[in-house]
């Protein structure tokens, strides 16, 4: 069945008029707490419509976030966009929508069946046959008829029709029409014609709703002032900005969902801001490699030479980078790998979210090696840790993984604007020819400072003592090949020491604790908003006070261990099947391992607060599992 239906078809004329009695009453209205979900078919341009809707609400000063759930193809399969409007700023996924806009015939039956009783359905007239519920409010809109006068060009209607549902939603939720117009103008600022067309469409939708639909008071959006100065951005753009402000010079990548938009954002930013103003030449190199092995190899080669180098990838790419990551670990070459996690194993669900590479990245490559992970918990940290990753890589002379995920990377989050770095870049321990003159001696892998980190020289250093031979094979502290047991073991022990040093300089966890907390939680990454919301629910609905330690890096620092020591039982929330971060903590802290109780979520959807609360209720004996 196709969306492009003839407006004169019998179905269209048979549309019953909606009831005109108002829904709910103004006094009991839920204000600024609503989830709007729109089901369309991907590739139909509904993204702009959804952004306009978000933006309108944002400009009304109401906190808002947006999640796109799209299929792993390019066009024609069901896509859902969810806008969460919440006065308290909760931004995690909420399980079901309050207002559902059904535009997609493929998914309509299931979509409607899944609606929460009492919620509101805006139904494209064409899809009426899928509607069989009497416990929801249904508004049938003849979108395909309404769009005809608005959009004379038949080929554009498929796109423009989306802006009409924006108008309908705006009317129903009492959105500010001026803000709506502004949002459209902004969205199409470079295409005035499109702006006009879309504005007309939205207003026509609004108008039609005002004339044909009853007033709706269950969910109302009212102006407030909680978004002033805020920005809305996705994690991939944020991380790309971080890399740019981290002074990246070489970026080698291979496209893969959901990390591609990071590479593409970086290409765009660097093209704009990283060319020599005089010569117009690039102060960087970005290479689309032939595969992930090559991408990582280029990063390692560039890092060896002193560039600030990074790559970004997702699951399968991580697997392919294994051998070279081990090389960088053992030769102690700075490298940054951004892992925008998607659902694995294997190809898995490329367009769904997960934290399933945590343990895999931590242990990547054969033999004894472990790698530091940076784990941003919000888009601002994506930016900050983008900078920090490049610093830590050069400081620790080792690969650093920046672990985000699809939910973080590709969805839209409200945040305070980012701040330019105030401290200089950390370029790590590099000896120049002058240093060598001064020091007389140089042993690449000697632990001079007691932190396990040796000094390096860069290729091209003009000094007879500068050169050393980098190799993944066993070597002594002068980088000379060695198969001696004591050289091998000594080197490996120094690497452990360095790793333990990393524990002390990586970003510390953040602790949020209610006074008198009786429940301890650890979480990280995109679980953060859901965990905070779950804590709020526990606090307000169950009277359970909690403390919450948000992990921001691995290996775990003393603060994390202390938290485990301080609490007999700690719920560790993570978005994977195998309790991967719990596994890391358990393997390294066996005496504390049994304090950890896992709260897992691994169906591919972003984590929601309710899922946490329910699992905790089971553990707290308040619910049967």
């Amino acid at each position, binding site marked *: 069945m196709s969306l492009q239906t003839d407006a004169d078809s019998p179905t269209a004329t048979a549309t019953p008029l909606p009831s005109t009695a108002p829904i709910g009453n103004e006094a009991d209205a839920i204000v600024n707490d609503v989830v709007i979900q729109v089901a369309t078919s991907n590739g139909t341009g509904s993204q702009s419509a959804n952004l306009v809707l978000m933006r309108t609400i944002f400009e009304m000063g109401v906190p808002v976030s947006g999640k796109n759930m799209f299929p792993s193809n390019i066009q024609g399969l069901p896509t859902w966009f969810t806008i969460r409007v919440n006065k308290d700023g909760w931004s995690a996924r909420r399980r079901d929508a309050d207002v559902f806009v059904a535009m997609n015939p493929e998914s309509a039956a299931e979509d409607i069946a899944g609606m929460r009783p009492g919620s509101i359905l805006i139904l494209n007239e064409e899809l009426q046959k899928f509607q069989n519920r009497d416990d929801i409010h249904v508004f049938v809109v003849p979108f395909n008829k309404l769009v005809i006068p608005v959009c004379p060009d038949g080929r554009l209607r498929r796109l423009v029709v989306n802006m009409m549902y924006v108008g309908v939603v705006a009317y129903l939720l009492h959105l500010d029409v001026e803000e709506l117009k502004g949002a459209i103008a902004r969205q199409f600022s470079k295409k005035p014609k499109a702006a006009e067309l879309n504005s007309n469409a939205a207003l026509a939708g609004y108008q039609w709703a005002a004339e044909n639909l009853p007033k709706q008071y269950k969910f109302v959006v009212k102006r407030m002032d909680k978004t002033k100065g805020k920005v809305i951005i996705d994690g991939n753009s944020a991380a790309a900005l971080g890399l740019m402000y981290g002074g990246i010079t070489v970026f080698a990548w291979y496209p893969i969902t959901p990390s591609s938009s990071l590479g593409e954002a970086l290409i765009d930013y660097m093209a704009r801001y990283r060319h020599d103003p005089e010569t117009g030449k690039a102060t*960087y190199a970005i290479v689309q490699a032939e595969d992930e092995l090559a991408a990582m190899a280029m990063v390692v080669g*560039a890092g060896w030479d002193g560039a600030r180098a990074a790559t970004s990838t997702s699951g399968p790419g991580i697997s392919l980078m294994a051998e070279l990551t081990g090389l960088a670990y053992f030769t102690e070459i700075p490298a940054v790998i951004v892992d925008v996690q998607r659902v694995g194993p294997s190809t898995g669900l490329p367009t769904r979210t997960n934290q399933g590479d945590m343990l895999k990245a931590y242990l990547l490559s054969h033999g004894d090696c472990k790698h530091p992970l940076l784990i941003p918990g919000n888009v601002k940290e994506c930016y900050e840790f983008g900078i920090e990753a490049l610093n830590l890589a050069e400081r620790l002379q080792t690969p650093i993984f920046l672990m985000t995920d699809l939910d973080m990377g590709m969805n839209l989050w409200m945040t305070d604007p980012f701040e330019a770095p105030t401290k200089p870049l950390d370029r790590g321990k590099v000896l120049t020819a002058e240093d060598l003159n001064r020091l007389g001696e140089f042993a690449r892998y000697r632990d001079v400072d007691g932190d396990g980190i040796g000094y390096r020289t860069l290729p091209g250093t003009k000094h007879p003592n500068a050169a050393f031979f980098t190799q993944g094979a066993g070597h002594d502290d002068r980088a000379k090949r060695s198969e001696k047991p004591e050289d091998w073991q000594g080197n490996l022990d120094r690497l452990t020491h360095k790793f333990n040093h990393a524990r002390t300089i990586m970003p510390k966890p953040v602790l949020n604790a209610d006074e008198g907390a009786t429940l301890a939680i650890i979480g990280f990454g995109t679980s953060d908003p859901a965990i905070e919301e779950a804590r709020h629910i526990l606090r307000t609905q169950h009277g359970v006070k909690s403390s919450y330690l948000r992990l921001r890096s691995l290996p775990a620092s003393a603060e994390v261990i202390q938290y485990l020591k301080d609490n007999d039982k700690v719920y560790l929330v993570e978005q994977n099947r195998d309790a991967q971060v719990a596994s890391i903590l358990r393997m390294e802290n066996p005496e504390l391992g049994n304090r950890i109780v896992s709260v897992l979520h691994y169906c591919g959807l972003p984590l929601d607060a309710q899922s946490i609360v329910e699992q905790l209720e089971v553990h707290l004996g308040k619910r049967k599992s």
Partner: protein
Amino acid sequence: MSATEAPKPAPAGAPSKAPATNRIGHTLQDYKGAASTLCAGCGHDSITSQIQRALFESGVNPYNVAKMSGIGCSSKTTAYFLSLSHGFNSVHGRAPAVATGSYLANRELLHICVSGDGDTASIGLGHFMHMMRRNVPMVYIIENNGVYGLTKGQFSATADKGSTHKKGFENEMMPIDACALAIEMGCDYVARSFSGDIKQLVPLLKGAMCHGGTSIVDVVSPCVTFNNHEGSTKSLKFARENEEPLQEIGFVPYYDEIKADYPEGTMKTIELTDGSKLTLKKLERDYDPSDKMRALDLLQKARDERLFLTGLLYHNPNSSKGIADQLNMVDVPLAHLPESVTVPSAAVLAEIMEEYK
């Protein structure tokens, strides 16, 4: 930028029996490395010597060189020359990509990548091809013995069809010809030589060092331990007996004049990126190395008839853009750009943030 350096003016009244130093004051010793741990007589060791000679005679500054390699007996040899230069013995097959990254970070260095036939034509084939497609400036030397030396003599993908294994059985597949692939991938400097042919290999290497893009030098280099038997087409004996050089090759650095005086029509001159020249004296065949199809044709014939043709197989007089120019990179090595250049201002960030507001 030329990797080789112009001569310093000779000090006035220098003694006539000066120590053997090159134009920039280095001795041959300065181009040597650690003692080889290869088998006595291994072809790779001869190539190492020729690399040392080429570098020495060309007056390459050792501090300006990055030595790259993969894994294999051949790849080990980067430790055996130029101990004054940084070397990177990376992982099996990935050296072309590692070297690409290194070049991007520091385009001022002369990148010399040494690889084996297993390293290049099996596990690393994809990277090898893409490096050439990108035209990453680098001297890429394949020490080609038709076997995996370090893992004890399995056939590599360059083993000729019908060539025998040390255990007696024959190779059933056609060899991969790295030079033909190089030409196909648009590489502008493609040569084949033999580890035992010092006279030819040295100028070919010098020429490669003066070329501005990727230059491929595929050197047949007998593995005396695992592939030197009767029946092998990469044995010392086979190579010695069958080598057919296409030209007699001379090298003239950019700061010198061509002196050789040959009868009209018997000598071609090839001008390289930095102005240095190769002189090609005609031998049996009339061969024009600027003719791509001719080169491919000859290589195809060589493969079918098992001819061992050496020399400059292809040189493109109109050389293609190197990767740095494709990417419009600044001249300064990226690795050395100061923070003031690589970190945009707070104002720029504010401007960007404004767009997300």
